C-alpha cells in the first residue's frame, strides 16, 4: 500500500472556465449541439511564441495548463512529468491521415505527424521546464489520467527526498470524431441543452467534451490543497466489483462511506452507464452530498481530470455549487471526497481525496 501524496495546485482548461478565471463555476456555458468545446485562454504567456504558431489546440491547451499548474505551485522544474491522454491530438491525427489519403501518400509535411504522437505534450513540457527527469505518457482510454496519478503516487513513494511531479491530462474532440462515434451510438439524439443532460438520463447516449487538467503533486504536505489517498482502476467491471473497489479504497484509508462528505459521480446521461452510479448513490448516507459534472464538461477519456480539479475547488472554497448537486447533504465541512467515474468503453475509476489540515 502506498502513502498518500499531496496536491499542491490544480489547473484547468475546460468548456466552462480556464486557468485565467478566478471564480468557480460562476459563469456557466452551455450548448445545444451535443458538444462542449473548451473556452480558450491566452496561451502566449506560457508557450514559446515561435513554437506556438504551428501548434494545434491540444498541444496549446496541454502545455499551457501544465505550465500554469507549475506556476501556481511555484515550481519551475518538476522532478517528473507524467500525463495521460485517451486520444492525443485528434486534430493532428485526422489531418495527417486525411492528407495522406487525399494526396495519395505523396508530398506530405511532417508537422501534424510529429504533433500526433501521444507524448508530444510531455516532450514540450520537459523542454520548456528543462526537466530531464522521469517522463511518462499513459494512453489507456478512460483511465489515462488515473494512471498518471497512480504513477505519480508510485514515484513519490519511491523517494524520501522532497519531490515534485507535474501530472495531468488532455483530450480534444473534433467534428469528424463526433461523426465517427455517432455511428456506434455514443451521442444522445436529439441533443439536449448540455446543462439539462442529466435530466435526460432515461435514454442512451451522452454529449462530447474536451479539456485539460494539470496538478502539481509532492510527497511533502506543505501548502497542499488536499491529499490523494488512493485510487483504483477497473475494466469491464460490474456493479458489485465497483462497490468492492469503493470499499477497498475507503478501508485503505481507514474510512467508511459514512466519512465521505461529497461523492463526485461521472454519470453522463447514458442509461447504459447509470447502474454503477445508482448503486453508489443508493449506498451513500443521507449526509453525503452527491455531485455530477459531465453536463458541464461533456464525456471524454480524461474527464476525471475535471472532477479532480472540481474536488480541489471544493476543498478550497468549502462549497459545492448548486449546478453540480444531485443531492445536497448536511455535512459540516468538506474533508473527504470520493470520485467514481465510468467511461463509455467500460472502464471505471475510484479516487479518494482528503482535505489537508492546515
Amino acid at each position, binding site marked *: *500500500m*502506498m502513502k498518500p501524496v499531496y496536491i499542491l495546485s490544480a489547473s484547468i482548461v475546460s468548456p466552462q472556465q480556464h486557468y485565467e478565471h478566478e471564480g468557480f463555476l460562476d459563469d456557466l456555458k452551455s450548448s445545444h449541439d451535443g458538444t462542449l468545446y473548451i473556452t480558450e485562454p491566452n496561451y502566449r504567456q506560457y508557450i514559446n511564441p515561435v513554437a506556438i504558431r504551428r501548434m494545434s489546440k491540444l498541444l496549446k491547451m496541454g502545455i499551457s495548463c501544465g505550465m500554469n499548474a507549475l506556476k501556481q505551485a511555484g515550481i519551475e522544474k518538476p522532478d517528473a*512529468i507524467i500525463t495521460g491522454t*485517451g*486520444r*492525443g491530438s485528434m486534430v493532428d*491525427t485526422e489531418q*495527417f*491521415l*486525411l492528407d*495522406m*489519403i487525399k494526396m*495519395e*501518400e*505523396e508530398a*506530405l*509535411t*511532417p508537422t501534424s*505527424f*510529429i504533433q*500526433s*504522437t*501521444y*507524448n*508530444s505534450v*510531455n*516532450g*514540450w513540457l*520537459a*523542454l520548456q*521546464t*528543462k*526537466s*530531464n*527527469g*522521469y*517522463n*511518462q*505518457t*499513459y*494512453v*489507456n*482510454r478512460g483511465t489515462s489520467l488515473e*494512471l498518471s496519478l497512480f*504513477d505519480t503516487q*508510485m514515484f513519490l*513513494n*519511491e523517494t524520501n527526498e522532497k519531490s515534485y511531479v507535474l501530472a495531468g491530462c488532455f483530450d480534444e474532440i473534433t467534428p*469528424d470524431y463526433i*461523426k*465517427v*462515434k455517432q*455511428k*456506434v451510438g455514443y451521442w444522445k439524439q436529439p441533443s439536449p441543452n448540455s446543462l439539462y443532460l442529466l435530466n435526460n438520463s432515461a435514454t442512451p447516449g451522452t454529449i462530447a467534451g474536451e479539456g485539460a487538467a494539470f496538478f502539481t503533486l509532492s510527497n511533502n504536505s506543505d501548502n497542499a490543497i488536499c491529499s490523494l489517498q488512493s485510487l483504483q*482502476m477497473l*475494466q*469491464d467491471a460490474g456493479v458489485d466489483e465497483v462497490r468492492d473497489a469503493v470499499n477497498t479504497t475507503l478501508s485503505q484509508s481507514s474510512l467508511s462511506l459514512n466519512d465521505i462528505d461529497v461523492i463526485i459521480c461521472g454519470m453522463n446521461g447514458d442509461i447504459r452507464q447509470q447502474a454503477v452510479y445508482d448503486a453508489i448513490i443508493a449506498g451513500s448516507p443521507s449526509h453525503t452530498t452527491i455531485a455530477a459534472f459531465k453536463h458541464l464538461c461533456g464525456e471524454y*477519456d480524461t474527464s476525471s481530470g475535471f472532477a479532480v480539479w472540481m474536488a480541489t475547488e471544493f476543498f478550497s472554497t468549502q462549497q459545492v455549487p448548486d449546478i453540480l448537486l444531485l443531492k445536497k447533504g448536511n455535512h459540516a465541512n468538506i474533508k473527504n471526497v470520493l470520485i467514481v467515474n465510468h467511461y463509455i*468503453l467500460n472502464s471505471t475509476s475510484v479516487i479518494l481525496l482528503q482535505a489537508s489540515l492546515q
Partner: protein
Amino acid sequence: MAGRIVITATGIISALGRGTGEQLQALTQKKAGLRHALHLKTKHAGEFLLGEVDYSNDELSAILNLPQGDNGYTRTTLLALAAMQELFEKTGVDIYTKGAFALINANTVGGMCSVEDMYLDFLAEKKEGPFLKYIDTLDCAESTLNIARYFNIKPFTATISTACSSSANAIILGSRMIQLGLVNKAICGGCDALSRFTLNGFNSLKNVDKEASRPFDQSRFGLNLGEGAGYLLLEKEEDAINRGADILAVLSGYANTNDAYHPTAPSPEGDGAYMTMQLALDKAGLTANDLDYVNAHGTATINNDAAEGKALQRLFTDKQPYFSSTKPFTGHTLAAAGSVEAIFSILALQNNITLPNLNFTTPMPELQIQPVTEAIRTNMQHVLSNSFGFGGNNVSLIFSRA
C-alpha cells in the same frame, strides 16, 4: 524492497519469425527480415524495405482461432496476441491467479493500420458495414484490452505511449510495481503494426531509407520501419525460485529521462543518451566496464547514431565495447522496439553471444568506436539495451545473469 526482479518468460513475433527461438536463429545466422511489403497496402510497397511480419492477418487469425476476414481485430492486436500466446504457452495461466498481476502494454498508433483503410467509410453519412467493428480501435489501449479479453484475464492494465521508448518504459513500470508490492507479477511489452500513417509520417521527415539501413555507418541515411510485438514476464526472484521457474535474466538497472532538447531531435553530443545509460548503471551498481554488450537504439538516422555513438564513446572510457543495432534485422518496430530488443539482449546474455550489426562497412569519422558485426562468443554477465524516442523520451535497461 522486494529484492531482485527477474525475467522468466518471453513471447515475441517480428519480421524474424514467430517465437523466441526463431529470433535467435536469424540473429546469429545474420538473416535479416526486411522485404518489400506484401501485406501493407501502400503505394510505396515496392520502394521501401520494411520489417514486415510474414503472416497475413488471416494467417494470424487462424493461429489464434479467430474468424477470418474483418473480425474486428487490428493487425496491431493480432501481433500482440500472437506474441502473448507464446508467453502463456510457456507459463500456463494458473500462475496469474495467485495474487495481483499487471499487464503493461505499449503502443504508438493503436489500430491505425486498419483505420487508415476504412476512414472514409467511418466518415461517410449513414454508411454501414464490417468496418463498424473497427470504430473503437484507433486508440492505443485497444490492443491492451483485447489481450485481457482474449486470454480471459483481469490484470491491472496500463498502456504507455512514449514513441520509440514505449515498451522499454512498460518494463520499467512493471518492475517498479513489483518493487512497491503493488503486484506480484507483470507482463510488460509492446506492439505496433506497420501502417501507411507511420511509413508516410517518417518519410515526410525524410529519414526512411529505401534500402537496408546501416546503423553507425558513415553512409547511413535513415531507418527501415518494422512491426512486431514482444512481452516479458517479470517477477520477484524468490517467487521464481519458489515455483521452480527458469530465470532468463535479472533486470538489474534502468533509467527513464528526457532530453529536454528538441521535439524530435536528440541532443547532438548525446548528453541525454549518456545520462540515461549512466543512471541505469548507477541503479544497477555497475560501471560501463562491467557491460559486455550494448544493444543500441541505432535507428541508422543521421542524428540518432551520431548522438548515441558519442554517448557510448563517452561512457566507455577504458575499453572498446561490443555494441550493435539489431534494427536492420527487424526494422524499427517503434513501440515494440524496447521489448523486442530487451528479448534480443537477454538472448545475447543467455547464449554468451554478440548480436551482429548488419550492413556496417565505413566507420563514422566522429567515432573511435565501431559496432560489432559478427555473432562473437564471449562471456556475458551484463548487457544494456537502449530505446530513445521522439519527445526526448530516453530509456536504458540493464539485464544481468542470474
